[in-house]
């Protein structure tokens, strides 16, 4: 135990002085958060629409004014030709044309909606919104109360922004990358430099070496992931709904799985090139298949069964449930079983494959 702690302290000292790799492990997720954080705020903007007022009377002016006050829309008034062009360019989502006989409450008038037919999906989404807005305006102008007023209450009290979806995924991805690089790449480098042999001539046991490296990496991973989460919470308003202690448990378990995978790779790969290849083989598919950037349900059906059992998938989904949805670990039994299974598999393999005599020389 003494030697394990000694190695942990030593590795912590070495890793924490390696500013370059700390910078790069944080740089990637922070860049992603920044990009998607800002894109996200844009999507909450009002929908840009154009209005052509061919009637030009007091009633039509009142209508345009009321539409402009509607929270869903940002209205540009202009002539048909200019606005049409803007639709084609994509600056406006649609143009509403008020007919000349748009005169008053007692006189129903046909409105025309100009859209870009190429954006069929967008049109289908916009139409009910416009119709609903027109209904709101009609009620307001005729001063009638809706017969069935509807108040929407969000029972989950959670946000549905993309950044909230993304942040837990990025945290999981960071854990994967730090851990695989921090065990597998390290072992190959230490072997190449003869450091493993240097240690092996002392009475150190494999468990001291592995235990020390794992402890140091766990401490560092928790610090790095906490930092990322703090950035997400403070700068991007990502809510942490769930239990922080359970979050820590997940970070530990995730790291342990990926560190073990790294140890397996480090024991198998004899050269720097081989470990790079193995590392990419393990990280890249998981990066895209484990629901980090988009949900697994939106992936092609054939890939889903594979995606659903990847270790990163379990880490991503459990982190997401805890952080965004506030679920406890006890409420995610299948995911917990998945994590436990991967931990058992990778840990057993890591211990089997790591033998001083083979690994050191």
């Amino acid at each position, binding site marked *: 135990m003494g030697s394990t702690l000694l190695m942990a302290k030593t590795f912590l000292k070495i890793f924490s002085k390696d500013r370059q790799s700390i910078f790069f492990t944080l740089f990637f997720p922070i860049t992603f958060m920044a990009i998607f954080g800002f894109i996200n705020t844009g999507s909450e903007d009002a929908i840009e629409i154009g209005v052509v007022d061919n009637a030009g009377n007091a009633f039509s002016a009142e209508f345009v004014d009321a539409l402009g006050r509607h929270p869903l829309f940002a209205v540009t008034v202009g002539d048909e030709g200019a606005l049409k062009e803007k639709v084609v360019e994509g600056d406006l989502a649609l143009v509403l044309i008020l007919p000349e006989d748009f005169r008053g409450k007692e006189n129903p008038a046909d409105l025309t909606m100009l859209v870009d037919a190429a954006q069929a999906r967008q049109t289908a989404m916009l139409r009910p919104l416009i119709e609903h807005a027109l209904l709101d305006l009609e009620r307001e102008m005729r001063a009638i109360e809706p017969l069935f007023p509807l108040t929407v209450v969000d029972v989950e009290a959670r946000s549905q922004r993309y950044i909230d979806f993304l942040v837990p995924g990025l945290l999981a991805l960071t854990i994967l990358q730090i851990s695989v690089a921090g065990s597998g790449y390290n072992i190959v480098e230490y072997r190449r430099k003869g450091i493993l042999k240097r*240690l092996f*001539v002392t009475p*150190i046991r494999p468990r001291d070496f592995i235990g020390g490296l794992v402890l140091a990496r766990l401490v560092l991973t928790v610090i790095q992931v906490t930092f990322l989460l703090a950035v997400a919470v403070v700068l991007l308003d990502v809510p942490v709904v769930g239990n922080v202690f359970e979050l820590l448990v997940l970070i530990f378990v995730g790291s342990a799985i990926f560190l073990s995978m790294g140890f397996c790779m480090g024991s198998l790969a004899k050269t720097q090139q081989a470990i790079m290849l193995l590392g990419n083989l393990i990280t890249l598919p998981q990066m895209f298949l484990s629901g980090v950037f988009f949900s697994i349900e939106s992936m092609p059906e054939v890939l889903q069964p594979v995606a659903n059992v990847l270790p990163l998938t379990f880490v991503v989904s459990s982190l997401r449930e805890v952080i965004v949805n506030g679920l406890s670990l006890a409420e995610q039994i299948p995911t917990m079983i998945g994590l436990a299974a991967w931990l058992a598999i990778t840990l057993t393999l890591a211990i089997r494959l790591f033998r001083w005599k083979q690994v050191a020389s």
Partner: protein
Amino acid sequence: MHPKTVNAVPIVRADKLVKRYPKPGGKSETFLAVDGVSLAIEAGEVFGILGPNGAGKTTTLEMLEGLTDIDSGEATIAGIDVTAAPHKVKEIIGVQLQANEYFDHLTLTDLLTLFSRLFHRDNDPVALLKRVQLEDKAAAKPAALSGGQKQRFSIASALVNDPKVLFLDEPTTGLDPQAKRNLWKLVESLNASGMTIVLTTHNMEEAEHLCDRIVIMDHGRVIAEGSPQDLIMHHAPEPPAARLHGNLEDVFLSLTGHALRE
């Protein structure tokens, strides 16, 4: 070499050591890297293992150190069986390796403290550095050392457990003459303090200068054994190519042939 009193009990004993490795290229075929090597190294002597590249010197050393499994035969150090109790053996031997790289970001002091603690000892790193004349480099990192300094540091890190037997694997390869002489002095002073020293070398001058006894290995076997003087007497070709000095090289070449090794 000046005569000295040597304890007659072998502190390192190897009995018919064998090591097989897979043949490079051939999948199931093996070759004998070490083929029945027996050694009896006595406490207090400087013992040299000579041989061309690929003769099995390093493999023999690594089997004695417990770094490589012994396929057959047995080795004991101070009576302790290397295969049965590798950790006990590691406690009493010091190993200087050919590789000279260490963890990044750690100073010489950090590294010596680490190695010392791994032996559950509390050796003063500065005192160790003094022994190898590196005390002014205490705060330096190994990457900043010269070749000779690196070798001396490597020896310092092999001394953290006050070993009874010190193994040196080609300690002067690649060093300039000054650094080489300096290292010889260090080896002599360590030996004078009672440490048994086992070294491998290509350098005949080194073997002649340092070693009380040597073995010459080739193709995994010991082909000659004795004091440098004995070997010159028995094996030097007549007439010696150079009469006054460096004759051991003639012995070496006459025994192992002139063909170039990889």
